[in-house]
């Protein structure tokens, strides 16, 4: 199981309702149902992925999270999950607001642009970084709004979004991020996972 999925699953209680925004082929939804008896629904843009979900018997709606989140009623899910796509939206602030409207809590994961390998790539090679979590080059990346764990942390404070928990993930381990260790964790985490409400 992907380390990211493990963290997300651990953050979720049993028997809740979860909307997985950008659910891909439904791998995470399948795990949520099996491990936590969660009532999972998905929203997915790519037609091929939508079909894969349908074949698996998962509930998925084909649509674009950028423009179609309005169809979900307010507070209709216990949790909304957004895995590594916040940075790909034209207007991530609007999307995040919508997620917080739909879910009582929101779990967001972001590839951390503050990770040391990303920083050194730019510092020493003077080129836009290409890593395992950021595999695209500058001209074909879907990521329009890259940010760091620190950026999103500060953004939430600024916008009065309650941060319940932040978890940093790197090759070796996962660890909790607090305001006190933010600088160091922002340097050593490949991925940041935020539990917001």
């Amino acid at each position, binding site marked *: 199981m992907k380390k990211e999925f493990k963290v997300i699953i651990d953050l979720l209680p049993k028997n809740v309702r979860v909307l997985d925004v950008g659910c891909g082929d439904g791998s995470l939804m399948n795990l949520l149902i099996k491990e936590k008896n969660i009532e999972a629904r998905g929203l997915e843009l790519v*037609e091929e992925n939508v079909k894969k979900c*349908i074949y698996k*018997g998962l509930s998925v*709606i*084909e*649509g674009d999270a950028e423009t179609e989140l309005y169809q*979900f*009623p307010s507070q*209709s899910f216990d949790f909304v999950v957004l895995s590594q796509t916040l940075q790909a939206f034209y207007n991530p602030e609007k999307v995040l607001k919508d997620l917080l409207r739909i879910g009582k809590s929101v779990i967001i994961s972001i590839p951390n642009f503050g990770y040391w390998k990303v920083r050194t790539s730019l510092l020493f090679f003077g080129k836009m970084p290409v890593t395992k979590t950021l595999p695209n080059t500058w001209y074909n990346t879907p990521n329009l709004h890259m940010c760091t764990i620190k950026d999103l942390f500060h953004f939430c404070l600024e916008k009065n979004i309650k941060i319940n928990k932040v978890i940093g993930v790197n090759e070796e381990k996962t660890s909790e991020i607090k305001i006190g260790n933010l600088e160091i964790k922002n340097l050593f985490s490949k991925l940041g996972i935020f539990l917001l409400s």
Partner: protein
Amino acid sequence: MNNNLKNIKKLNISKPLLLDCKQTVKDFPLAYETYGELNKSKDNAILVFHALTGDQFVAGINPITKKEGWWVTAVGPGKAIDTNKYFIICANVIGGCMGSWGPKEIDKKTNESYGLSFPVITIRDMVKAQEALLDHLGIEKLLCVTGGSMGGMQALQFCATFPNRTFSAIPIACSTSHSAQNIALNELARQAIMADPVWDKGKYLKKNVQPKNGLAVARMVGHISYLSEKGMQEKFGRKLQEKADYEFSFNADFQVESYLRHQGYTFVERFDANSILYITRAMDYFDLSRQFKGGLLEAFKNQKTKFLVISFSSDWLYTTKENKDTVIALNASGADVSFAEIKTDKGHDSFLVNEPEFLKTLKGFIDSMHIKFKK
């Protein structure tokens, strides 16, 4: 019109049915057909609803017209809706003309065809009449209800009216209410029939004739709306029909004209003009939100049914947006709903033709629902 409808399956509905027009009817025939076998645990039954000009003969060869069933692309042995695995039921809607109670049936009071004295029926009336068939076949809960176009409307209506009688539903290329454009197109079809002098206020059957010209035009209108602009252009373009140059006449010079005329005039052989009036009216009156005080939210409240809504990108009769509105309403009611848009140039007709992506989606959903339902 072929009247050889004696040897087909018919159920006499003896339970009184209160129609939306407030008339109560009983002891009327509902013609139906089944394919495959109902298994012991009775968890493999699928109710298919037909569209405006369809009938109960979904698969195989239609015994009346001797042509292939209208959904032979999707239903049959080894097909998306596999008759080796599932028990498929389809009934001719009331108001229709393939053996069910409709305007061409004989009114016992007058010993003549009903004609326009047949009551104006609704989609809900059609669906209620079919519930009795499930009781007759001993099916308490269906695995799935499905249908395209008016068949999809019936599927939605069925779930709203009988929320506990199906495990899943696939409304295809339809909406929860008819749009102004759809009503307008239906009105065109009706006016074409009523403008034909043979129609004679619906009394033509007494003279054993059909308003063929009007009915053919009505069918042509329909056919145009079932295709997409691009599909039509690619299929016909400006190609001429078996001739090198214009004839400088009003004969069918263009292939598209010839196609429409063919569709129109073969249709009159198998369909009753008054049935078109009644069924199109039922479609126009369809508005699920009007049936419930709280609108659509109430219509789909407490739904346990698992929905898959399917639309086609080039369908301009029931657009993706309209299908999505159904999804939004289902979502707002907290129902379990999936949605897929099939990218195709084949227009509204996509559900009837061989459209592999559509058929794969249909099969994938039904098979996965069967596994869940068995549990």
